[in-house]
């Protein structure tokens, strides 16, 4: 990954030092008639120092890309950010990233720029995406001054929409993975969780296409509708 970033930076900066032009980053795409069977989607998971977006920080980013209806392992993102100044004692037990790993992480700015370039403006999916979206947008804003927002979709919404009869033991990623016999290769590892989330996404997309949902807009609308329905029930 480090090599990749270096090569990419060299290419983009043309050997010059200094900041990248934020304007040259890819624009976020809106859900239109891109076919589910061949569009590119980002499935992302973050590890953070805690749950409070106001004071906690991102320490690891794992993501895989789905394109052509398959997870492309040649197209993935797996980085621990260099944040040695952060206090991670509270969560270190959960995700297993200790100080040593953090200091070996990468210049946050470089990593985030590369991430944006890599994401290519494609829609982002995550499990309980509000959390990841809040943290990532906050980090992008504070580190890079980047304020454009991507299209986010929540896999935690996607699953009950397409598997209405499924009864997972709860609403978490673990519950859904267990229901479908999936297992993360490492628990609370951003990349491993992203892969399991992507696997669940593939299952949902498989069902969506059988239900006649062909493109991103239809998928987005369906999720939106489901959300509204849920909110109505709440009142």
């Amino acid at each position: 990954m480090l090599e990749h970033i270096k090569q990419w930076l060299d290419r983009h900066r043309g050997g010059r030092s200094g900041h990248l032009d934020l304007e040259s980053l890819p624009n976020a795409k809106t859900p239109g008639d891109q076919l589910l069977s061949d569009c590119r989607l980002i499935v992302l998971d973050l590890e953070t120092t805690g749950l409070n977006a106001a004071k906690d920080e991102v320490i690891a980013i794992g993501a895989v890309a789905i394109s052509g209806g398959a997870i492309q392992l040649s197209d993935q993102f797996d980085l621990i950010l260099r944040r040695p100044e952060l206090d991670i004692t509270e969560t270190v037990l959960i995700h297993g990233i200790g100080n040593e790993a953090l200091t070996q992480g990468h210049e946050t700015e470089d990593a985030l720029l590369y991430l944006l370039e890599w994401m290519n403006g494609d829609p982002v999916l995550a499990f309980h995406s509000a959390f990841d979206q809040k943290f990532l947008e906050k980090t992008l804003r504070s580190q890079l001054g980047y304020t454009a927002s991507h299209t986010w979709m929540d896999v935690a919404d996607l699953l009950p929409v397409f598997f209405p009869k499924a009864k997972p033991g709860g609403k978490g990623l673990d519950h859904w993975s267990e229901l479908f016999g999936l297992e993360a290769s490492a628990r609370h590892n951003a990349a491993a969780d992203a892969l399991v989330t992507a696997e669940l996404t593939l299952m949902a997309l498989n069902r969506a296409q059988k239900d006649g949902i062909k493109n991103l807009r239809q998928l987005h609308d369906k999720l939106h509708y489901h959300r509204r329905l849920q909110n109505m029930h709440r009142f």
Partner: protein
Amino acid sequence: MAAANSDNSRPQNTRAIMTFLREHAPFSSMDDTHLALFAEHATLRFYADGDEVISPDDGIIKRFYVVKQGRIRGERHNAKEDRTDTTFEISMGECFPLAALIGERPTRTLHRAAGDTFCLSIEQDAFITLFSASDPFRDFCLRGVSSLLDQVNQRIQSSAMASIGSSNSLDTPLERYALRNPIVCSPDLPVDKAVARMHDNSVGSIIVTDDSRHPTGIFTLRDLRTLIAEHKAPLDTPIRQVMTQDPICLPAHADAFEAAMLMAEHHFAHLCVVDDEHCLIGVVSERDLFSLQRVDLVNLARTIGTATHLRTLVSLRTDVSRLVDTMLAHGADSGQVVKIITTLNDVTVRRVLELNIKKNDPGIPFTWLTFGSEGRQEQTLLTDQDNGILFETPEGMTEDQVREKLLPFAQTVNQELAECGFTLCKGNIMASNPKLCLSDDEWDDWFIRFIDASTPQNLVYSSIFLDMRAVYGPTKPLEKLLDKVLSRIRKNALFQKMLAGNAFQRKPPLTMFRNFRYVTDGNKQALDLKRQGLAPFVESVRVFALANGVGTANTLERMDELAKKGVFDPKDANAWKEGYSLIQAIRMRSHQELLNRGEELTNLIDPDDLNPLDRRILRESFRQAQRLQQKLELTYQL
């Protein structure tokens, strides 16, 4: 991804896929760099239950797939009967479609997901890179499934090898195998004459002895090579000038381990075995030591066949077990090995009979019959007696009078066979049972009742009495009897159907979801390789064999005959033979392991004790048994 050397620098998901691959063939024997190449180029796809994965209509195959989770079913349309047959199943860790990918053609089989399934796959260019870079991968792809079978065999061989190298072989005294008559000469013999003598006796060494037969030197082919290459001396030089003086000697009671250590220490390939007076009595070569356990089958059979005492026969049984180890180690297949065990068992049975006739001749000619697994020539080390007697009643005697003479004789034979390791039959299916010591007419009546009035109890016996063979005595009476039995069964469709129904009861141990179905063995889960694994093959094949006039009792031979007669499709017959043989091989390996640990032999195994490859092979073999039973079901409309 980036050129990363150490595992830690690879992304978590790449590492996870490598870990997954490492658990399965051929990846388990591939280099990490190649596994990484696979993982970094892989795509992961999902197929819901029933989704097509690849189909003959997709055109030339461009991807190589590995099942990561779930299962793939191969479907072929059977035009003759207008239905879809499942031709194979691919489960976790297995690769497809090898033949089509290598042959650069479309697949001939529709691959469909059986249950929700994830597959890893790589594109053709990555496949070609791996194919040319990794030897194990290439071997695997070229040999396809057959290499799986090879791997099982290799594993059986290596575990048998390990037991050969165990201490119990090396602590055997040298005199037990070093008594090969040494080739000797006097110190004055010219080298060329000595070499001629070695040549005549096809040995690699000659011992030079003095007048009192004390070894004074040794001359080997290696010495000859040096002599000629370095022009040390003309070939008519007396051998004492070129021999190695004072060869290493060991007393006959020294053990093989000492000999091996000495040889290793001095880099000698030969050493002399001497008696207490230091007189030469034999030579041991390195090769002798390392094939110590290569008990020669012919020799063993001859030793058994000429043994003069029961206790010799009893002691020779350990040699039989050692021979089985060796056979397995040298790559004999399970079919050959069970036949060899049977052959040696036959020789033992014959010798026990001969020794008893010598001691106490009942005076009436008889044929010694053997039933069940021995009748089928499918015995392993765990075996009990199933035997009987067939006689032709001499003029002027009644059958009961004959029995009066034969039964006490049979009683002794059964007891002595038990001492030789053939457990007494719990069901009393033994020649000493008056009901199984019968004349030709009585046997014929017996079979008429058996076939025409078949009761559930009778059917239980079908696996014993319908697989029979003569081990001793005239074979003609049995051939006549068998002819009658076979033609009666061929004409009796009802009996065939009952037999088939009975065979159909014995289900292979797979659940609907293709998991293993266990029998309970105390607290442990277990599979009974004989009853659950082999029996479904044996029983189904027997029905087809008897219904189609196949006289032989051996299951593999029966399948060959049935394929020749067109009853079985040759491809099916091969798959079934392979499945049957693999279960047998795994069973025999487990027997050898139990034996080496000094534990009681059992047919039960815990699949968790097997490696993933063996588990897969067992599962596939059981599935073949299911297919065979499906044929039975269709043929007899069960």
